[in-house]
Each structure stands twice: as structure tokens, then as C-alpha cells.
């Protein structure tokens, strides 16, 4: 560790308006949304959610899945340099680790408000040890992962990028998050009674889409922190964002599209009861927004050398993909529950679900936490550090 120059722990960095705005808006968002949610939960209880016995899991769970898979993906991106040795990714590695922490905290926070007895988890998980439950393992691994991520960030923050401890932490967090997300995949994929989810490859599907959201977040936030343009980026970062990122982004996006396409074709073709949700999806404008605008359009932008060279043209696909992934998580989580298990006359057609205001407030909370913590990190924690350069606060000042 001591091989590296030590920097102050918190380095107040002159930051752009964007980061400040993120901190300010984020803080406001956290205060307002958590106040609203808390008030409603205390006065009304969880029935302020739009969930029902047909749709026990609603928008907050989709939001949770969105954030934790994003965190997963960000760890993948960070691991490219730290675990797999793709050095060109160093310029965004620390940022990604921080973002992984931030999004994971956002996800967990949303979940904490969603669950009936969040505090019980603390003692009930360890004393229950229900080894057959993917949720148990998911909880275990994601908690472990959070600890490892924080440690990893700390070591990096302290300037230790590749001591054995630091490397070990990187590998460990990578492995844990693969396990965690694998269990999240299993959590849905093992549900044989819900054909929309039932799929041995769910973990792989989650892997791919997690990677995609990791890449999209990495791109989006790197841009946001560099004044939206590549011009202001340091050379190594610009080179990464110009030469490598578009290709990687396109590749992951391409694989995602293939995966999604296969899933949809499969779903539309099959007669299995419970899969008619795919037909319902076809009739939803959100689905088309997701597929065509959120995935296919960015793919073509990324494939076109002319387009992706333009100013900000990596930013647009990143933003669109994030939107698409959010819609996708919603469709995925809700979609699995839309065909009622028993469809009598009282419940013909699909189950109905409309997220309530409080549930939307939890989305706001997740976004606000991400925004606040990321902005604060950008401000205080030298997120642009790379191993070569020591610490980014100095670098930015150059």
C-alpha cells in the first residue's frame, strides 16, 4: 500500500455543476421521497402499495432488481481491469466501484422499504439458514458483496490498486457478485409454476443484462462527470471511451438483443399457459419503446462509426439503454405474475397492477440515493483516480 502516494481521504474537488446538482437534487429527493414513503407506511401500512395477492411483487422489486443488477454490471466493468487485467479500463474502474456501491445501496434501500419486516432480516436470516432458498443466498452474497465492495473501494481509495489484498478483494467481490446475481437469477428462474420466468438460463440472462446496465451506467456517469463531452476527458479515458467502450457496449447490447429476441420468440411461439404475457407485452407501447428505442436504436448508433463519433453520441445510447433496462426489469418482474395462477371467472384475463404513488416514490428514492451518493463521491472521493496517476484530484487540477 505504501508504495503509492497517499492522498487526503476526502479531497474536495472542484466539481462541475452537474455533480453539485446531483448532490443537491439527490439530497432533496431522498428527503422528500423517504418522508412520503415513511409517512404513508406508518399511517397506512404496506397497503399503500399497489400490490395484491396476484401481484405480490411490484415496482419496488423491479427497482431493486434494476439497481442490484446494475451494481453487478458495474463490478463486471470494474473487474475488467482489476480482475482480468484489461488495463485500458483503469480510468473508469474506481468510478465503477463507487457506482456499484452506490447502486447497491440504492437497491437495498428500496428493498428495505418494500419488505414487511426489514429489521427482522438481521436476525432471521442468520438464524434461519434456509439453504434451499435462493433469496437466502442472494441476501447472503449481496451483503457480503457490499462489504467486499466497500473494502475494495477503500483500498483503491487509499491508493492500493494491485497489492495481493487489493487484488484478492477484487476477485472476491467479482466472485461474490456472480454468485449473488446467480441466486437472483435462480430466485426467478427456478419458479416452475411461473413459466414466464422458469428458465435455467435466467442467471445467464441476468449476467448479460447486468453487464449491459453496468456498461451503460459507466458510460453515462463518466460522461456526466466530464462535462458531457469527450473533449474534456483525459487522454487515456478519451481513448477508452472512443476506441474500446463503443465496441464493448455494442457487443453486450448485441448479445442482450439476441437474448431478448430469443426469449420473446420462445414465449410467443409456445402455447404453455402462463406465457401469454408475451402477447400482452406486444400490445404495450412501453415494450416497443424498450425494444426499438431503448435497445435496437442504440445498437445501430453504436454500430455506425459516423454516429458514434459525434459529440455526446455515446451518452444517448447509454441513457436509452438504461431506460430500456428499467422498463425491462419492470416487465420481467411484473410479467411473471400477470397470468393468475388460477384464472376463474372472477379473475379472467390478466391480473391488474398499477404502481401506487408510494411505489413511484421508492423509485425516486433509488434514483435520488444514486444521484446523491454518486455526486458526493465525485465531489469528495477522487473517482477518476487510476493506479498510474496516483490521485485524480491532482490530475483534474492540471
Amino acid at each position, binding site marked *: 500500500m505504501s508504495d503509492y502516494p497517499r492522498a487526503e481521504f476526502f479531497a474536495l474537488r472542484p466539481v462541475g455543476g452537474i455533480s453539485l446538482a446531483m448532490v443537491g437534487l439527490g439530497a432533496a429527493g431522498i428527503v422528500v421521497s423517504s418522508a412520503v414513503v415513511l409517512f404513508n407506511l406508518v399511517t397506512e401500512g404496506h397497503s399503500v402499495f399497489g400490490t395484491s395477492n396476484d401481484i405480490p411483487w411490484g415496482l419496488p422489486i423491479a427497482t431493486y432488481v434494476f439497481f442490484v443488477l446494475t451494481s453487478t454490471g458495474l463490478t463486471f466493468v470494474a473487474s475488467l481491469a482489476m480482475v482480468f487485467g484489461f488495463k485500458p479500463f483503469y480510468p473508469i474502474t474506481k468510478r465503477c466501484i463507487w457506482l456499484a456501491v452506490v447502486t447497491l445501496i440504492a437497491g437495498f434501500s428500496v428493498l428495505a422499504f418494500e419488505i414487511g419486516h426489514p429489521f427482522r432480516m438481521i436476525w432471521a436470516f442468520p438464524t434461519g439458514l434456509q439453504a434451499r432458498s435462493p433469496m437466502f443466498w442472494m441476501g447472503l452474497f449481496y451483503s457480503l458483496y457490499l462489504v467486499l465492495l466497500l473494502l475494495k473501494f477503500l483500498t483503491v481509495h487509499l491508493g492500493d490498486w494491485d497489492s495481493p489484498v487489493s487484488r484478492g478483494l477484487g476477485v472476491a467481490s467479482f466472485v461474490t457478485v456472480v454468485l449473488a446475481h446467480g441466486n437472483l437469477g435462480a430466485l426467478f428462474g427456478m419458479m416452475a409454476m411461473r413459466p414466464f420466468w422458469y428458465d435455467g438460463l435466467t442467471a445467464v440472462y441476468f449476467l448479460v443484462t447486468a453487464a449491459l446496465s453496468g456498461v451503460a451506467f459507466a458510460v453515462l456517469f463518466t460522461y456526466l462527470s466530464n462535462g458531457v463531452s469527450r473533449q474534456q476527458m483525459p487522454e487515456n479515458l478519451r481513448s477508452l471511451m472512443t476506441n474500446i467502450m463503443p465496441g464493448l457496449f455494442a457487443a453486450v447490447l448485441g448479445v442482450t438483443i439476441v437474448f431478448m429476441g430469443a426469449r420473446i420468440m420462445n414465449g410467443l411461439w409456445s402455447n404453455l399457459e402462463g406465457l401469454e404475457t408475451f402477447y400482452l407485452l406486444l400490445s404495450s407501447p412501453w415494450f416497443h419503446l424498450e425494444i426499438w428505442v431503448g435497445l435496437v436504436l442504440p445498437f445501430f448508433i453504436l454500430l455506425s462509426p459516423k454516429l458514434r463519433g459525434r459529440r455526446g453520441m455515446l451518452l444517448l445510447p447509454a441513457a436509452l439503454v438504461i431506460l430500456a433496462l428499467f422498463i425491462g426489469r419492470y416487465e420481467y418482474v411484473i410479467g411473471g405474475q400477470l397470468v393468475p395462477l388460477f384464472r*376463474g*371467472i*372472477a379473475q*379472467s*384475463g390478466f391480473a391488474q397492477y398499477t404502481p401506487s404513488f408510494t411505489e413511484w416514490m421508492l423509485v425516486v428514492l433509488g434514483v435520488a440515493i444514486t444521484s446523491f451518493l454518486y455526486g458526493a463521491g465525485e465531489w469528495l472521493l477522487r473517482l477518476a483516480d487510476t493506479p498510474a496517476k496516483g490521485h485524480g484530484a491532482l490530475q483534474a487540477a492540471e
Partner: protein
Amino acid sequence: MGKIDLMTSRRRFLQATAVTGAAAAVGTVVSETVRPTPSEALAQVAKPETKITKNTCHQCPARCGIDVYVTDGKVHAMYGDLDHPISNGKLCPKGYMGAYILYDPDRFPGPMKRTNPNKGRNEDPKFVPITWDEALDTIAGRLNALREKGEPHRFALVYGRGWGASDAGLMRPFGALYGSPNVGLGHSSICSDGSKKAKKALDGNEDYNAYDYGNTNYMLNFGASFLEAFRPLNYNLQVWGHIRTKSPKTMVTVVDVRLTTTGAAADRNLIVRPGTDGALALAIAHVILTEGLWEKKFVGDFIDGVNRFKTGETIYPASFTERWTLGLIEWWNAEVKDRTPEWASTITTVPVQDIVKVAREFGTTRPAMAIFERGPTTHTNGVYNGMAIHSLNALVGSMYAEGGLMNQMSAPYGSLPVEVDAYLDDIAKAEAEKKMPRFDKVGSKDWPMAKAMIQEMPLHQLKGDPYKLDTIMFYMTNPIFSALDVKAWEEALKTLFVIDTSPFPGETAMFADIVVPDHTYLERWQDAPTYPFQGWPLTNLRVPAVEPIHDTKAFGDTLIEIGKRIKGPMGEYYEKLEGVENVIRHLAKGFETNPGDNGVNGFESWAEKGVWYKKPYLWRQVGGEFFEWDGMGYNKPMAAEDVQKNCFKTPSGKFELKSSYLEAKAEFISEKLGVAADRVGFPQWIEPKYTGGGDLHFVTPKTVMHAEGRSANLPQAVALYQAVAGGRNRTYLEIHPATARKRGIKDGDKVKITSDRGSIEALARYISTSHPEIVVLPFGFGHWAHGRWAKGRMSGNANEIIPNVSDPIAGLAAFNTVKVKVERA
């Protein structure tokens, strides 16, 4: 609660374990993986006493005996009484919700006085609590004033679900003493007077039948919703499990205007056009006769044994010797000979081959029974439909046979301690002299044959014909919601001083000037003799399970208390009568000499068991011979006079296929229904006169989870409500998808249902099994009062748009004869 505490106290299993102590209790619990916890240990300590009290379910008229469980002073459960012959330990779904009724948070906490003089749906009555003394004095004051003015007839007491001698039974004496012919006007003309009248015409018994379901092998059911409403529903549900799994299995054919659960569970469901059952039944009779399937031992036969029943051919009456029927050949000649399946098919929409098949099955399976109730009779031609159906029971010889039909015997009650005649004062006598017409005009030239005419009362009030009432009191009826011309009821009640006795803030109560709330059934003493069940006599006793939770009074006591406040000998009569409990004690004296099969021989044992009954039914027809029970068996042959006295109570002592009862009123029937005077006596086809002016038949049946005005405010019931199927939380207008699409109506759309009486709204539900020309809106929702859960269920009250037209013979309102228009709202 009553002065004595007789409640059976049975220790539940809880106490059983308590006695043996916690350690032993653990031993009896099957071992399990549960982690022992403090709360479990706690559970072992506190062992409250659970008391079981006998009562009678109140949600429908079926008279199911119940065990009411009370722990810590709270009613928390009820189950069917295992020793009650109707319940047999079971209840229908409504029965379990009694505690919710008792603890309905919208109940009146005590007597109330209206302070808002304006009445209307949107007028808050602004009730203020008053004392019982004030309430009773106010009522008695009005009643005394009317008497003093010589107008006691301007007081009416209207009731619906009367239970027995200790409530409805108190009304006639009250009327006589007070001097009004309008005390105790019933609601049977919106209920089911049609089937009673059809039976009166044919077999002389103006009553519903008792049935031996358990032994029948064929049930031909015309619109009696056997598994949803038909009385006694709980027993029907029980016996269904038996008849459908016994050997031989009882075949069931259902004739209805829609697919009911009964129809679905049956072997066959035939959907007819509303009001056309008579045509179908006549065609079945036609097939039975032409194919020689009638029960010859009961009906008789051609002298030479050759079947001369040939379609369209008249028969010489003397060629046939009848046994227990009267007028078969005349009936054939006048009616049945032309009533072919082909003819009936065009009227009913039932395919010819189905009619023939059913007729052959029914004609060849013994014992068989044809049952019906409101379905075929809530039409302008109701009594004739009913007669056509009931005559099938004669053709197959099921009257008084095993597996057939009987009549209900009554319980041997003791007499009341005071004689009415001794307490009639001059006013009462003068009124009796005057022979004031009844306010519902029953017995007048308009309704000479009806038993009640509740649905006409608001029109009478508004027109002042026969006169205007001054004060009206309601007991267990809410015609402003459940009868017809409900808008006229609203107007009429504005002109009246209204007393409601309901514990609940129903529609009537919203128009009341004073409310004297009854105890709920779990808080009161009340006798309740059975509705027709299996013939042998049975009568229940309601025993309070808990002290009244509000400042309420049993209706019977309210009436008695009012009586005590009437000046003159009437007040003395009621002082002597004391109260309901005293009345019941005197009723129970009848059991002293006539103990029931369960040993009940007086008040105490009656209260302990909750029921007195005595099997068997005394009369039985076997192969065309009638026998009386002699203590061992049906061994004592009956003479024709005995049969007439106990069974066929017609002038001829026969099952009259040419009804002398109707012929006696030939002129009236002829005038009202256009039937030639010489034909009025025959079961026959006359067309229903569809009302409403629409193009779709509109049917408003009952459903299993809902009972009259008594379950609309139970959130649990509402949540479980399934119309025919589907629903939950609301009812739907059930409509065939093609019919709906033609009108641009999507599944779930709000629709407007319109007749020439107005419009209501409801939500549409595609039901592909519906007849395309028939829409169904289950009765019961559409309340605009009656408590917070009853209101606002997104369905209008069907009775707002059903024209007030009745079958002239029985006076039964033709609820199901209406046609409506349906469009998107």
C-alpha cells in the same frame, strides 16, 4: 338476556386439555418441528370458558339450527347444530357470518328519532338517540290518537320474514285489539305466493311442499335454485351430496333461464325463455300421456287398458277411470292434446329432442319429482306455469309417495295465557263491524285471490285509495328496496309517519321517523317453526347467546310494550301477556304432552336443544293407496275422507286437474287473463305479458352468498360474492358476448339497463353460457343505504326498473317478466 340462564355450556377441546394440565396437553399434541416459544406456553395457561348456545340462523328462512360459540363474552364462531334435523351439523355459506351481523359496526346503538323533516335518498335523517320510553310513548301516543279519532285502520304494521308465534304471531291479535285490519300485512306477494297458489288450485294446500329428496331418483327442477336459494338451502346442499352419490344416482334436470350452479352440477340444464315453463311442462305431460308413462296406480287408466292419448285427438271421458286425479281427460281434451314437444320448442327455445328425452326419463324413473318456486311463477302467467309443473307430480304418482312430495305439519304449541276476545273494547269492535278494506286491497275485487299485495301499497297511499295511512311500522321487510315501484315507496313514505324496527340502517330506516331497533337474532328469544321441510313437525327456539350489545329490544317486546301503552283493555291484555319470554313459555307447554323425538318436553329442554321435532310424517301413498302411520309403519289404510282431510284438501278430495278453486273465480280470471271461463280450471299455457318495453329478458335471481336484506353489509360476504360465478366485491350484469358486442359493450364495461320505468347502471360481464336474449343481474346489491359496505357496489337496484305488474291470481309480482334495453353507459 332472559331471566334464566339456560345456556348449555359445553367445554370445547380447549378445556379438555386444560383439565389434564399443560404437560398432558403437550402429550396430546402431535409432536412437530415447531420451536417452543413463550406465546405457546402462554396459550396453555389461559383457558377461557366457551359456551355454546342454541339459536336459529337468520339469514334466510330455512330455519337451520346453530351452535353459537361464545368465549370471553364474545361470539366468535357458529356451526350447524349436529343434532338439528335440518342442519345436521352443517350450514350454508351465509350461516357462518352471524357474528359479523351481531357486531356490524353500522347497527343502530339504540332507539332513534329523526330530526330532519325532509325525506329522500340524499337526505340525512339526522337521527338523534332517544330513550325507549320516549320512543314507545311517541308511538303509543300516535296510536291512541288514531283510535280516538276512530281511525285505527290508518295504522299498518307490515312484515316480511316473520319467524313464529313470538313475533309475526303477535300481529293479528294486536290488529284485532287495536282495530286495524292492517296489522300484519305480509310480503309474500313479492316472495313466492305463486307456487302456493298453484298448489292450492290443484291439491288444496296453499303452502310450499315438503319433499323427500333423499329417496327420489329423478328431480325435474323448474327454476328452483336448489344449490343457491331454494328452501331449505342448507339441507338441499347436504342432500345433494347424498343423491348424487347414492345408488342409483338421482338424475337431475334443471330448467332455468340461465346456467346456475344447480344447472351446472345437474345432469342437464335446459335454458328456457322466461315465463314459458308452463309450455315445457305441458309438453312433458303430453309425452308422458301419449307414451303411456303415467303412474296408473295413482292416476288410473283407460277402462280397456288401451292408451288413447294420441296427439290432437279428443277422448271420451268415460273411457278412463281416474283414481286420485280429477279431470284428466277433460284436461287432455282442452289443453294437453295439442301441447306437443314441437309446439313447446318454439315457445321455450328448448330443442324438441331434449323435451322428449326429459319427458321419457321423468316418466319412467320412479320416484320422481317436479319442483319449482319463484322462477316459473314470478310472471304474469305464474300460477298456470306452476300448475302445469305441479300436475307432473300427479302424473308420475309422487304425491305423498316415498321420494315424492308432502305437506308440512305444524308444531303442537300451547295456547297463550290471554284470550283476545275478552279484551276487545268498543273501538275495536266498531272497527271490526265496519269491515274496513285492507290497505293492500287483498280480498277486494282487484285482488280477490291474493294473500298479500305489498307491492301495491305505495300506490294506494299516493292515491288515497282505499284510504291514506297515517302511521306505518315495518318489521323485517324493506320494500322500498326489495319490492317494486320503489320510487313510489319513497314518495309514499314521505307522507307517512314511519317506524322501523330494523337493527340496521336500511333504506326503510332512512325514511323512518322513529327507529326502535330489534335485537339481532343472537341476542333474542324467538320461536321459529320450520318452513316446509320433510313434513313432520319441527320448531326451533332462538336463545340469546350474549347480552344485547346495544340498547335494543326484541321486536315482540316492542310490540307488547306499545300494546301496554294503548288505553283501555288492550293495555291490560298486554300487561297479562308480559313479554316474549312468557309467550314462548306458554308455547312450550304444548310439548309437555307431546314430547319431541329429542326429548324436548318444555321450555327448558327446548332452550337446551334449540329444537323440538317429531318424526315421522303421518301419511303416505303407496301404489295408489293411502296409509297412515300407526306407530310402527304406514299400515293403517286411509279412507277417502281421511285423504281429503290430511292430503288433498280440495272439494273433491282429489288432485284436481280441473281446479274447482279457480273455477269458483272464473269470471275474475277470465277478465284478467283472457282465459275462457270454462277453461280456467285447467293447468294451461297462457302467454306471459312481457313488460318493460325492451328487447332483452332481464332476470334478477338470488345467489348463495347473499340473503335478502341481511348480508349486504358484511365485508367478508361481499368479498366472497360470486354472482353465478365471478364477481368478488360486486355483481355483474351477465350478458352473452355476442349480445354485448352487438351493442358495443366490452367485458367489464359500465352499462345502462333501461326499461319503461327508468334506468340503472351495472358492470357487464361476458358469460358465454348465457342465453343471447337473456341478461342476468343478481338481486341484492344496489343498496343506497344499509351500511358502509352495502352501499356503492357499482350496481343499481334492479327493482327500480322492473314494472310493478303482478299475476292476478296469486298477486305475485312478475319480477322476471320484464324486458330491458342494455347499452354502454
